[in-house]
């Protein structure tokens, strides 16, 4: 697990536990630090505790034990200072159906203790392509538009920490790409972003660091790039000119497999390694007079890595 110093950490979670009234333990001694200015992706299967964790930080659920600070302020004892800095886009599309987009965004800003600032609200609505809809009642909007409204509300008070709980669930491709742009823009502006997502592709594209939560425990926190390097595998697939029954004895010391009825020879190597061994492989294939007409290299996605981690833990 990578270390962060207190100076660059903006959210510090220590020994956080949550046991619900029905006895269900949602979080078990969570320790986690989020660095200032990063995009942190919290991954985990359904029911792993992602939303509970976010809801405790935001003040919607009471913790059973442990503490959370946001920008140095305790989220319980100094909840005013802590919460003013936090914006939350929840998973469910809960909005005030009868309010207009403008009114509801303005309301959120006031609720978080900021004086009215129409110019800022306008900027937020424009950045989310909501400006044309500003006078429409929320109940007339599509699901994707409602999601944008929730983001606008969360940004209305200029938070420095933004929680996005499944921001692109049920959202079409175009909107998803728009949101990625908005999130990157916010990061450029210095906002720290913590997101949970089911689309691992999203985490792969956006996150600086990745945390994996499983059964209420954080089992891994790592730089995305390092994680992909350490746990990712690369493969080289060679399309053979002549199918093989089995790997020749001279090559069995190499990590080779046959697939596609012996027509494809697959070489697996560590993405992290300095030397991939590809040159040696090609030399030895030539010596053995094994010829091929095509080759393709591929690397495992964050999704493959995630699935493996979760599988190994179970």
């Amino acid at each position, binding site marked *: 697990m990578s270390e962060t110093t207190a100076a660059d950490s903006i959210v510090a979670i220590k020994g956080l536990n949550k046991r619900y009234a029905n006895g269900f333990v949602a979080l078990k001694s969570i320790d986690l630090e989020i660095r200032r200015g990063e995009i942190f992706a919290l991954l985990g299967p359904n029911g792993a505790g992602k939303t509970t964790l976010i809801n405790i930080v935001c003040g*919607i*659920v009471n913790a059973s034990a442990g503490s959370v600070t946001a920008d140095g302020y305790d989220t319980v004892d100094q909840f005013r200072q802590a*919460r003013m800095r936090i914006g*939350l886009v929840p998973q469910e599309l809960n909005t005030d*159906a*009868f309010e207009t987009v403008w*009114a509801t965004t303005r309301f959120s800003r*006031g*609720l978080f*203790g900021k004086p009215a600032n129409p110019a800022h609200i306008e900027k937020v609505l424009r950045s989310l392509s909501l400006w044309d809809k500003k006078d429409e009642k929320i109940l007339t909007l599509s699901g994707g538009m409602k999601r944008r409204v929730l983001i606008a509300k969360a940004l209305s008070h200029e938070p420095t920490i933004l929680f996005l709980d499944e921001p692109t669930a049920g959202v079409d491709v175009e909107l998803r790409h728009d949101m990625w742009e908005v999130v990157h823009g916010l990061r450029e502006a210095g906002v720290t972003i913590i997101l949970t997502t089911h689309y691992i592709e999203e985490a792969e594209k956006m996150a600086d660091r990745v945390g994996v939560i499983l059964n209420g425990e954080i089992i891994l926190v790592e730089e995305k790039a390092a994680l992909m390097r350490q746990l990712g595998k690369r493969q080289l697939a060679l399309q053979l000119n002549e199918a093989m029954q089995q790997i020749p004895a001279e090559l069995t010391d190499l990590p080779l497999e046959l697939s596609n009825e012996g027509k494809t020879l697959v070489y697996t190597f560590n993405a992290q390694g300095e030397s991939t061994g590809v040159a040696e492989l090609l030399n030895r294939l030539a010596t053995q007079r094994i010829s091929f007409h095509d080759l393709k290299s591929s690397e495992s996605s964050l999704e493959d890595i995630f699935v493996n981690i979760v599988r190994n833990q179970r």
Partner: protein
Amino acid sequence: MNWYGVKAIYQFEMARWLRTLGQSLAAPVLSTSLYFIVFGTAIGSRMGDVGGVSYGAFIIPGLMMLSILNESIGNASFGIYFPKWSGTVFEILSAPLSWRELLLGYVGAATTKSMLLGCLILATARLFVPYEIQHPLWMLCFLFLTAVSFSLFGFLIGLWAETWERLQTVPLLLITPLTFLGGAFYSIDMLPPLWQKLTLLNPVLYLISGFRWSFYGIADVHVGISVVMIFLFLLVCLLTARWMIVSGYRLKR
């Protein structure tokens, strides 16, 4: 204090009220007018004075109380129950608001609405029966205290209720009977001795009695007792609301 937060909630609640102004104002004014027509004018003309006041005028304070109690409870309970039901309460809970600011916003708005409604009913009554107000300042004080304490009580019901049915149960099964039996339409002197004693257990009696005193200088119980009782009720509601919000009872999981 997060005054911008208080203002946001207050304005939100007032805007909701204005959107449904017909239901918010016209309905209680209409029903109160019907009471005046039936009890004040039609039946009242055949009844003698009560404590030197015509029956039509006698029932004005009680009828105002009936409406104010129902509206205060209805408005404030809906105000907090609806976000709980729709899920938008997440935003309220995650905002930098303490129990004081939440109450000022929600209960403040409900109190304003009830006060406005009370004044409107008073003006409507003028169309049906002549009356005078002996202690107008006290009248406003009673109006205010009643509106605040029952808006607070309504807020508690909204926090407590987990279904729409429960939200309706308390006003229907508790407040309406207590108001009718609390002397809205009669002085407790008119009751048999046993019922007089039992009526003293009804908290609404103290509200109506004090309020009526501010109009006509006649009361079933001493006005000082009325004031103390209202303050006691207010205090109990305030402490309960504070506990519910701070602990997150029925608000946070």
